[in-house]
């Protein structure tokens, strides 16, 4: 915050900075919400910090809960799985949908049709 001000004596070194995401961007996202009129400094700081905690939590839960623990990888499917299984991440299901193969989808569709036809008979 004191980037424009070389005279400031109380400058904190970057290493000690407690948040790394840009608050200006977080504020922009917050303000894009239609009902929000103003946000005080503390609320902005807390939301930024909370977002960082959230990113860590989502990444770590998905890794621990996922299939890539042995191969040391984190894949999209691990995230989708965690989102589906963990109650607190349910608000993400729209943007983290579980991916299925087209051929599996078509198979299910076929099965459904067959069942319908059987029911009609």
């Amino acid at each position: 915050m004191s980037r424009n001000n070389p005279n400031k004596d109380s400058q904190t070194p970057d290493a000690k900075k407690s948040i790394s995401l840009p608050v200006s961007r977080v504020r922009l996202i917050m303000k894009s919400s239609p009902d929000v009129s103003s946000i005080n400094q503390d609320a902005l700081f807390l939301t930024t910090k909370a977002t960082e905690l959230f990113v860590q939590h989502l990444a770590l839960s998905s890794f621990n809960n996922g299939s890539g623990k042995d191969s040391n990888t984190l894949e999209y499917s691990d995230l989708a799985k965690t989102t589906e299984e963990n109650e607190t991440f349910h608000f993400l299901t729209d943007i983290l949908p579980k991916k299925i193969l087209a051929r599996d989808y078509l198979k299910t569709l076929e099965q459904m049709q067959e069942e319908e036809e059987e029911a009609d008979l």
Partner: protein
Amino acid sequence: MAERPEDLNLPNAVITRIIKEALPDGVNVSKEARRAISQAASVFVLYATSCANNFAMKAKRKTLNAGDVLAAMEEMEFERFMEPLREALEVYKKDQKGKKEVSEQKRKDKEKKVDSENDKSREDDEADEEEQQQCMEEEPEEEVEN
């Protein structure tokens, strides 16, 4: 307001760094997974903002404050974040207070100079101080000029 849709994304480099720091060393995070986490973070901000705003509106306040954000975390069942958030806020406030004292001292020095010329400038300074509390990024601006 955001001009372009990409303004609502968080910077990928920072998100990637936060992910790396959270995971054990040497974990490879796919590009798709990084993108998804970044989008999830944006959605998290919006969800938290909307929850916090409900608390502010219930209390008939127009400005979101720290209590609203903490209440939102509880409502969203992210209680696990509340303690670290309180601690971080404590440190942040202390830091801000230190900075404020420095800038207040500077303002006083400035006032002494300007005082004899124009009485009105002090009122302006007081108005500025109120604005500063609303908007953190504007704080250092006026000191830069002298």
